[in-house]
């Protein structure tokens, strides 16, 4: 049996997690969520995600620090970053191996990149 691709959504705002989970579940992707980088890292050890979407600004462990740790612990897992502070996050995130940084104000590029990474075809 082929498993659904798994996405780990990490954002401290419950409504953002809820919105992303709703959308990705509509695409038949399996979603799990955490509210900070540290908890996400622990979750990722068990959940083995195919893609991690990190918020830039979070309590306990912010997105850039979390991405750094994720890169060391699971270098094979692609990471995308979502932020309300576009421009500030961009360089810092890419320096630690994040594949793309996307604005919460314009979600289409994130969706497109997710589809590319997980090979979800648009007909």
């Amino acid at each position: 049996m082929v498993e659904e691709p798994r996405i780990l959504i990490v954002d401290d705002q419950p409504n953002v997690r809820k919105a992303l989970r709703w959308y990705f579940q509509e695409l038949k992707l399996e979603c799990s969520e955490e509210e900070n980088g540290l908890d996400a890292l622990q979750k990722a050890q068990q959940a083995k995600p195919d893609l991690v979407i990190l918020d830039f600004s979070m309590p306990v462990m912010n997105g850039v620090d979390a991405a750094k740790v994720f890169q060391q612990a699971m270098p094979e897992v692609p990471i995308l970053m979502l932020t309300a502070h576009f421009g500030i996050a961009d360089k810092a995130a890419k320096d630690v191996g994040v594949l793309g940084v996307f604005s919460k104000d314009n979600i289409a590029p994130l969706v497109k990149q997710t589809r590319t990474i997980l090979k979800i075809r648009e007909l």
Partner: protein
Amino acid sequence: MARDISERNRAEEAPKEAELSARLLQAQDEERRRIARELHDEVGQLLAAIGMNVAQVVREKDKLSPAAARSAEDMRHSIERASAEIRTVSYLLHPPLLDEVGLPTALRWYADGFAERSKLKVTVELTDDFPRLTQDYELSLFRIAQECLTNIHRHSGSFTAFVRLSCVDEKVELEIRDEGKGINQEIQSKINSGASVGVGFRGMQERVRLIGGKLTVHPNPNGNGTSVLVTLPLNEEALAPSESTALNPDAAGEEDRSRAQGLSL
């Protein structure tokens, strides 16, 4: 790793993507509103209390050593500055007047504060009797004006800005103009065709799209610079319940009631 889950056509996906955008914008607006309220109500009040205590110390500074008296004075000034900063940041995150008195007043207030901070000359032109719109519409139009004014200050080189909010022939128009260096024709065409051109415009276009309007960019008709024009139909969906049910008061909705509750607090 991943499975090809296709069998879904693009036309089916587009509304879901739009719904996701709407939910994320709403989540961000709610978060800004929450932070603004916390800053104003919690940190602001705490600073006010500290300020009062320090003012008492300053009043009795004759009893202090000269160094301690100077420190107390410095502290009073720092607290005043911090309070002003908190107020500004809180208002920028979410304009408190918007919910209570509506878009025209909030825009005028924002433009005044912006002019003071940026040193730009800002002119605001408002239609009399502009109706109350639903919260989403008012916040979207306010954010667009805010973003445009910020762009003018940062990028246009203009010394002036002009904001016009009107409601004529069942149509709402928000126009923000400057007399700066202008946006080149190619970028204007891209914006007007909905292509991606930088986060600021994408965010604005997304907001406008979600409320069923249109955003276009033109050269300033009065000379140099740029004009950003948002138009949207003034229909039942746009009008706040109190406006759309003026002839049918029994149909007043939940939003109206919560607005009234907000005012009474």
